[in-house]
């Protein structure tokens, strides 16, 4: 028996819609097996992962809080991927944004700086993220260096820079030697939407980003250009679209969004700059982008789903002592199934006997 791919005459739109659902189903089936191997009751584990977080207001807010950076970063990445530019370094752009924005917060600490502080932090973070993303973009366009590798290397560099700052010049003198800045002043903090809750202004910003991306891709020439350059580079050249320019543009936009997500996370839920501010948002956002079919609305849904797995993972750890790394395994497997199911959009799978004559005779 042999698996054979047969190209479909045209891409199947039905499959395009249901394939993420098939992928999620297959992932959950695989997780059941993994839970069983770990010696945990699969049904209880699935409940802890996917149902329990949806049953109380606090966890629901927490899901939205986790989804905020994921959606924001993934929207930017989807623009890159649509234009066939492989930005893999969103994690680094997220960290640089957090660092750049925190600079203002740290410098104005304890002064009577006014309401301009937070907006200035957001703008500076977005600019820093964009500039940081431009390094691999320019290296690619000018010198032909693989943007995949250079953007990734910059993640480690950003991580080390943050580490240096919070252990050295920006360390909180009253922080008992912990590598962290002091808590940000109220003017340098993202306001909460619900008094005493967790949901903050960042959630609204990420919804605006989703809307803006939907308009860009659906209603503007630029969005059309991005999609053509990615899907049909030759046609795009004939159409006079400048692919290099789009690499620069999409990298800058996705870097800006990742940087913005970085400062919102630090000035919001975390409240100060420290190492480990990201549980891998920049990488998980890659999964969000693909699971959401590189479509803004899809990314919003996928971001909420992946956020659910983060929160569910924490609950499963507390309730059932399931290691947190299971969440990463879950996310990795999910991306595999998403990609495999996407193959169904372009191809039909057939099982064929290695001896084709026999299979034809039998069929």
């Amino acid at each position, binding site marked *: 028996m042999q*698996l*054979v*791919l047969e*190209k479909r005459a045209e891409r199947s739109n039905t499959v395009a819609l249901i394939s993420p659902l098939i992928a999620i189903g297959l992932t959950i089936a695989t997780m059941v097996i993994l839970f069983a191997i770990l010696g945990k009751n699969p049904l209880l584990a699935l409940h802890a992962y996917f149902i329990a977080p949806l049953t109380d207001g606090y966890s629901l807010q927490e899901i939205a809080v986790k989804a905020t950076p994921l959606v924001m970063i993934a929207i930017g990445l989807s623009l890159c991927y649509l234009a066939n530019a*492989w930005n*893999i370094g969103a994690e680094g752009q997220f960290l640089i944004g957090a660092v750049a924005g925190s600079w203002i917060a740290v410098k104005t600490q304890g002064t009577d700086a006014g309401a301009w502080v937070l907006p200035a932090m957001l703008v500076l973070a977005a600019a820093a993220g964009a500039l940081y993303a431009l*390094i691999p973009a320019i*290296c690619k366009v*000018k*010198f*032909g*260096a*693989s943007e*995949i*590798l*250079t953007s*990734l*290397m*910059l993640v*480690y*560099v950003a991580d*080390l*820079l943050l*580490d*240096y700052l919070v*252990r*050295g010049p920006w360390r909180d003198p009253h922080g008992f030697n912990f590598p962290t800045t002091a808590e940000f002043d109220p003017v340098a903090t993202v306001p909460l939407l619900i008094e005493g809750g967790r949901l903050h202004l960042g959630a609204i910003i990420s919804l605006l980003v989703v809307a803006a991306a939907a308009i860009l891709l659906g209603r503007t020439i630029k969005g059309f250009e991005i999609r053509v350059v990615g899907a049909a580079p030759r046609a795009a050249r004939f159409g006079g679209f400048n692919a290099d320019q789009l690499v620069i543009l999409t990298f800058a936009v996705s870097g800006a969004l990742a940087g913005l997500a970085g400062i919102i996370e630090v000035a919001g839920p975390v409240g100060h700059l420290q190492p480990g501010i990201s549980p891998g948002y920049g*990488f*998980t956002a*890659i*999964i969000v982008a*693909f699971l959401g079919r590189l479509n803004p609305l899809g990314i919003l849904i996928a971001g909420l789903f992946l956020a659910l797995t983060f929160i569910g993972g924490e609950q499963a750890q507390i309730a059932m002592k399931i*290691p*947190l*790394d*299971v*969440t*990463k*395994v*879950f*996310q*990795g*497997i999910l*991306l*595999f199934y998403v*990609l*495999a199911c*996407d*193959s169904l959009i*372009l*191809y039909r*799978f057939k099982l064929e006997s290695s001896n084709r004559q026999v299979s034809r005779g039998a069929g």
Partner: protein
Amino acid sequence: MALVEAIILAVLAASTPLLIAATGELVTERSGVLNLGVEGMMIVGAACGFAGAWLTGSIFIGALFGIVAGMLMSLVFALMTLGLAVNQVATGLALTILGIGLSGLIGASFVGERITPAARLAIPGLTDIPLVGRVLFGEDGFVYFSIALLVGVWWFLYRTRAGLILRACGDNHVSAHALGYPVLRIRTFAVMFGGACAGLAGAYLPLAYTPFFIPGMTAGRGWIALALVVFSSWRPGRLVVGAYLFGAVTILQLHAQGWGVGIPSQFMSALPYLATIIVLVLISRARTGGSTAPAALGTVFVPDR
């Protein structure tokens, strides 16, 4: 003299995992497949390698565990990209994300444990030669093996018929297929060879480099190995140069801290990553006349029937 000797030994030790992983990826890419999952296969190799050595007390069995783990990971990649014609870039990333999770899961129970690392093999007579003896003949077995592996790959690619066919698949899969060569099967073997090498390279870290396992201990070495393949222009000879240069940068950074250079350690630690970017830019720029990459690299191939 003792210092120079120590530095050379340290450079060789730091270069070896890069060299092994990059050699495997070179073969994979020569067959036309871009597997970006090296980091993921390495990190799973590190966890499984340590687990194997800790459970059995044998470095050799630990290394075998690492190799098998890397091969299993690469098999998943082959199934996806060759069997289901999925985009290689995205699948490679998925492999790395999955690998980081799996490695944490497998390695969790071994954090804090220690093993006796691979001994340096002394060759009676040769090792005692003054000046060069310890450097040339006093390494652990992995170092010798990495050199033998590279020479073997060079011989295979350029001196055997099978190597020629493998390179043909990487340069023009349609022609290779038309000539009757099983492109997908050859690529599967190449991918699995790359996986075995990445797994071994990962296992080297807890088995010989440091005697313990910590999550994330590959620290981007898999990605640097990928960059080294570009640096080498897909030629085994230049791969050695690149790997040892990078090993030297890594060690320079460690020793600079020891010498009390007044630069914060984080800046020194960033050196290998910055060096990778600079090297990629310089190499890619020097090659404006035409790429030396295998022509079919990273492209999907579905045989026509």
